[in-house]
């Protein structure tokens, strides 16, 4: 890549070397790093939303406060759904490593069901809150709450669509390198969302009950 013209100690010009062709990169060799950097940018989005919640989370505008709204046992159930889906995705990856397509598909399906349960519980929580008049328009606290938790839920929903797509891809084309790569990217995405949820249940729900 680089062209160097340097002088030897005696003043003679050394030969110049060019690299006319880049050395070959395997197909998708940089995908994992690229996807990791995408996840880090996603992490910054969540950091900004957490900061917004941190700033606005105490402004109830004489409306409901976390203590009036949050149901901790329900959040605990929700958290366990996401934790279980994380380990079942791990088992799916182990099945992929061993080339067992059938067990991979079963674990992916189980992961998808846990993810659906998570989204279902979250939506029912949201609908209860909205039915009680705790809509995003009610106060700054509720606006930032729905934005933060809703963005996480949206990510999980996208992950579910991705998961379903990959199950179809694997059943049609088998464990080709591209499908393995996609499954590994989704693995990172899924575990990353679990990490974000740790922040959500700690800062939003548990700290909210302590306010």
């Amino acid at each position, binding site marked *: 890549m680089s062209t160097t013209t340097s002088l030897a100690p005696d003043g003679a010009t050394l030969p110049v070397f060019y690299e006319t062709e880049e050395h070959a990169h395997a197909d998708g060799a940089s995908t*994992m790093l690229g996807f990791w950097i995408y996840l*880090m940018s996603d992490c*910054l989005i969540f950091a900004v939303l957490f900061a917004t919640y941190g700033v606005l989370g105490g402004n109830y505008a004489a409306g409901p406060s976390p203590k009036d709204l949050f149901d*901790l046992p329900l959040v605990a159930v929700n958290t366990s759904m996401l934790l279980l889906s*994380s*380990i079942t995705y791990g088992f799916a990856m*182990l099945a992929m490593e061993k080339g067992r397509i059938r067990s991979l598909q079963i674990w992916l399906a189980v992961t998808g069901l846990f993810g659906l349960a998570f989204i279902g519980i979250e939506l029912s929580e949201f609908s209860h809150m909205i039915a009680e008049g705790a809509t995003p328009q009610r106060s700054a606290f509720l606006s930032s709450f729905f934005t933060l938790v809703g963005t996480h839920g949206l990510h999980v929903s996208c992950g579910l669509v991705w998961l379903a797509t990959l199950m179809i891809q694997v059943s049609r084309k088998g464990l080709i390198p591209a499908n393995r790569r996609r499954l590994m990217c989704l693995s990172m995405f899924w*575990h990353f969302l*679990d990490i974000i949820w740790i922040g959500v249940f*700690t800062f939003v729900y548990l700290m909210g009950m302590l306010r």
Partner: protein
Amino acid sequence: MTADAAPHESGHHGHGESHGSQKSYLIGFVLSVVLTAVPFWLVMTGTLDSKLGTALAIMVLAAVQIVVHMIYFLHMNVRSEGGWTMMALIFTLVMVVITLSGSIWVMYHLNINMMPGHDMSQMP
């Protein structure tokens, strides 16, 4: 977790992360269940009398759980992708810390100064 300890892993298309084993996933799962159950228990039963103490405890537990997830589920280590994933992570963490602490600190002081009843005419 460290199946391929080879320092040069270009023959392995670049990424040095392994996929863990059944055992490492189970260890990670058990640790994260404990690290989730304890903060919920602390808040729901109010075992620690002080709110500040409980808040600090659950924050520490959350930080530990994040590290556990990174090691056992995301298989983070300093060697994957020649260290670039770790570099990206460290850079992101710096940005996250600046964003969070900066916004909360600035807005906290703004809120204090905007408190109703804070009489600006008394200011020098």
